């Protein structure tokens, strides 16, 4: 797992080409390694957009309107969960609890935590990410 985390941190995803190399190094079968990569939600098999917005979908955020907030953002960007905007700028991923449940609804944008979100604050943060072409 620490190796997979390191790969994802470096490449933004776990490249398919890495699987046989890992299997060889760890004396596992390729199926074993593929099984581990595919089991955990975090590990992507393809690169994400330049900026990753993780929106909390869990109950505490729902109690503060997180569901409506997320649906409306996805609709306006024309995305489904896990989708990336056409310009490759923003990926929206679901997350089940960031531990910010007393400041709901919450999100993590490129690792930056945001709480007490409403439509204006979320839009401003997402637009800021979209217009920022630098690598986070």
């Amino acid at each position, binding site marked *: *797992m620490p190796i997979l985390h390191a790969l994802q941190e470096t490449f933004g995803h776990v490249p398919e080409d890495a699987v046989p190399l890992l299997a060889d190094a*760890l004396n596992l079968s390729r199926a074993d390694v593929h099984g*581990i990569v595919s089991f955990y939600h975090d590990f992507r098999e393809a690169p994400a957009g330049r900026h990753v917005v993780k929106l909390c979908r*869990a109950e*505490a955020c729902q109690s503060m309107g997180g*569901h409506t907030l997320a649906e409306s953002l996805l609709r306006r960007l024309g995305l489904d969960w896990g989708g990336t905007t056409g310009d490759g700028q923003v990926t929206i991923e679901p997350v089940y609890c*960031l*531990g910010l449940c007393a400041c*709901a609804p919450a999100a*993590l944008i490129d690792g930056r935590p945001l709480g007490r979100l409403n439509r204006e604050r979320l839009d401003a943060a997402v637009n800021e990410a979209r217009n920022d072409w630098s690598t986070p």
Partner: protein
Amino acid sequence: MVDAMTTRIFIPRDVAALAVGADEVARAVAAQAAALSTAVTIVRTGSRGLFWLEPMVEVETPLGRIAYGPVQAGDVAALFAAGWLTGATHPLRVGRPEDHPFLARQTRLTFARCGIVDPLSVEDYKAAGGYRGLAKAIEVGGAATVEAVTKSGLRGRGGAGFPTGIKWKTVRDAVADQKYIVCNADEGDSGTFADRMILEGDPFCLIEGMTIAGLAVGATRGYIYSRSEYPHANATMRAALDIARAAGLLGRDILGSGLEFHLELRVGAGAYVCGEETALLESLEGKRGVVRAKPPLPALKGLFGRPTVVNNLLSLATIPVILDLGAQYYADFGMGRSRGTMPIQLAGNVLHGGLFETAFGLTLGEIVMEVGGGTASRRPVRAVQAGGPLGAYLPPSQFDTPYDYEAFAARDALIGHGGLVVFDDTVDMAHMARFAMEFCAEESCGKCTPCRIGSTRGAEVVDRILAGRDVAANIALLEDLCNTMKFGSLCALGGFTPYPVLSAIRHFPEDFHTRNSPGRRLPAAAE
């Protein structure tokens, strides 16, 4: 050394405070102090747990620490102008945190230091009572340490409520070349953040608790299994581990006592089921987080097949205070078989959300209405989900339930990891029941058929109810399916998903039975 002429200003670095602007406030304080040529020292702390007041800034004055909150960067100039460095009055002034009713009503044992000390200062930790528990454990030895934990009545704070001392004794009595201490910090339940607050606000407390556990059962290695959703907590914990190793608080000869204990942090990858202890062990071994059948118990065959203590973070972080102040001191709090204190986490649609550590025994209504102040939206409370996504939804008619493991169980509810999520009257309980099934389908490890397939079928059945098709028959089918999941799953994911579903049907039947009937109250979102 801190210059005597400089005023210390405490600003939380807890991620919940960062999420509402604590870093911006810290920058504004530094800039304004420089502009006024005033000497201040900014100390970054954990959170006190009064999240509606975050960012809550505390200023050290002759009157003690005076809190102001919620402070935004734009308020900083006015706070300086008002004279906050001497604790002057201002609309944001909270006063002495200890006098605030939310804190004054608490009994903080596990969270005694959180939000007060610099989390990465060993000196602060020791000055506030840290490492007295380990010194005591070294003095009395392993057997007496296990005995003290048993006598304290401490039960597993992860949800199952198993007596910690009995688990330790099993591991202590097992014979093996290597034993392990594993901290379950995979705090995946919605509405919980107590583990995170300790990781960010008092990490040495966990390190000390795990070291004591290692001494007690004869384990020389430990692992903290945390979550990838907690990047800030993990960074703080890693830094604390480095500091502890450098200070001789971890390693081969701790505090010169000859005690050996090595501790590492491991991070999961977004799988909720890894909070289940056997799935967690699989994940630590680098495998898919698939649940193991028990027996064998992890206490006998755990990590890499060796005897392993798997304890929740809160249980381990409570060990130092039990050793320091004595088992009886701890056991004197609480009611019935629920001894000591529980860090309750009030979250969701609640006016005063935060961490409330208290002796067992307050009623659910006192906690939600008096401590929490009701909803943040100021609408009536309709439901409270206790114990995370696998916990029951309780209506206000059950607010007389005492906060106690057995009293909750008698009402088909769970205390779990201490989370309480409040919902107002706009919540659609059929939607929440569907979400519970959907979440189980998403997170199932796939080992047991009732959980893997049942959750998907369950979500479909709720969809039919939501569409108003054969409602009575589909509710009966859903109840039957829940029974199968409850009794046919190995772990709590499949076994407890029925709790939120069945409690929603039982306590809020109007959201299921009368879906397309005229005059049905629509949730606010649909109005």
